[in-house]
């Protein structure tokens, strides 16, 4: 009776293997995403768009405000400095094994009223990282930047 038995391995029953046949996905960054990544690659700056009505600066930029639907088409350089809103210290990898070195990930704000950017922290230890830490982006050299979120290597403490 299959109902009453507890299988230790799912391969104990006759089975078929399958996979998702989709080879890969091709994502576009969109109108605002394109502006963001080109500026990061070519000028080494982080762009945002601001909704004056709602007082929100979207980082990375968006072409619309999600609260009032205003069209946002003026890109502003928000600078490379930000502040840690929250962080986590990752100690286990996806395989469940301990990482050689803990990795620190954070949500970073670029001044008040901005949306947060998820990124990695560097040049900081689990003992010294804290909420409210002032940080700055460390960019790859221009020749190595390809217009990716990883053109920012990490954020490190300032001051």
């Amino acid at each position, binding site marked *: 009776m299959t109902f009453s038995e507890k299988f230790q391995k799912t391969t104990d029953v006759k089975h078929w293997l399958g996979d998702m046949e989709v080879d890969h996905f091709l994502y576009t960054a969109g109108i605002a*995403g394109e502006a963001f990544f080109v500026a990061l690659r070519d000028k080494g700056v982080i762009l945002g768009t601001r909704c004056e009505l709602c007082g929100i600066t979207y980082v990375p930029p*968006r072409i*619309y405000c999600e609260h009032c639907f205003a069209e946002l088409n003026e890109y502003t350089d928000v600078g490379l400095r930000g502040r840690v809103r929250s962080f986590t210290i990752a100690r286990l990898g996806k395989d469940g094994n301990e990482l050689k070195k803990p990795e620190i990930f954070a949500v970073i704000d670029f001044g008040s009223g901005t949306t947060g950017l998820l990124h990695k922290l560097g040049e900081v230890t689990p003992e010294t990282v804290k909420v409210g830490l002032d940080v700055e982006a460390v960019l790859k050299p221009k020749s190595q930047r390809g217009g990716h979120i990883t053109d920012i290597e990490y954020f490190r403490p300032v001051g």
Partner: protein
Amino acid sequence: MNLGKIHKDVAVVGAGMTLFSRRLQETGKEMSWQAAQMALDQAGLTLDDIDAVIMGSAPDAFDGVHKKGDWLIDGAGGVNKPYMRVYTGGGTAVFAPIAGWWHVASGMFERVLVVCEEKMSSCQPHAQSAFAHIWDPILDRPLKPNLVWIFAMEMQRYMHTYNVRYEDIALVAVKNKRNAVGHPCAQLADPDITLEDVINSEPMALPVRRLDISPPSDGAAALVLVSEDTAYELTNEPVWMDGVGWCIDSTMWTNRDLAFPKFVARAARMAYEMAGIKNPREEIDIAEPYDPFDYKELQHLEALGLADPGEAAIMTREGKTQRDGELPVCPSGGLLGVGNPIAATLGIKVGELFWQLSGQAGARQVPGDPAVGVAQAWGDLMQFSSVIVMRRRP
């Protein structure tokens, strides 16, 4: 169905849609925002006026984003509002506005924004690879089936059962691709296409040839729905959703009647009853049936009661379904001409009826001041249908 429980009449007061294209630079969120903003502009409303948002989108595997209804929310205007995604595959195009309808008809919400989006170009090498997973993994997939097989076998059975000629079916593709010439969002409009072009196009899975099929596409569309309480404050030409219906057949496509889609007929019966339509052939002025394949337009017309089984092909040959014919069918250009970003075909079904019945269809306008239309979509595992009857009131 308890018609006595419907509290409010529901009208469309604005519609919008983006370009349909093989690949758009815009993200799904950006497309959603563009379409939604157009619909709001037409209704003379802002996002702040909207009480609830319905998002319609087909499989996550197209955009390549899991739970994409939640992911699309900010572009759809759903942030901090009652929001739900509905999904009935290709049927979503007409089912999402039905979900919008019950939000308003129930009396719970006054103004509802319905947004539909699809970005099929994300799925590589082709959206077809995601469709492979609708097949039974044990019975069907070892045969390495292609989705087109189902359509080819339906079409074969349809032709056999009702003695329909391929040439008459192919005329649907010619008509719709020509109709799409007037559509500013069209992907495959072709003013010069001929019957020979369709007949000589690449055989896919016979009898289906390349030009019998609508193209995968990226795009978005949106509607604003309001109740009878405020419709006339917003426009002099609201278009009323007077009847809605939907129905689903067996999971196993091999168990279905391949020549006549009974579930479409049942969905239509529900919508007609609600709308008080007794004789659809007499009372319907325009039809926008789902036409992802040319033969599907014919099957759907027959199941909608607008033609006898097998007769839709003859009506097509006689020109009765042309824009200036007795029963204009797919004056938008349909999926065959405008494109097939699954859920976003909302814009060429319900959206088209809104523009046609309010006299705003421009180059596509059906002559004779049409007042009653029916929109229909078809999807899920090829066994679901949604139907809406729309009316302009004198």
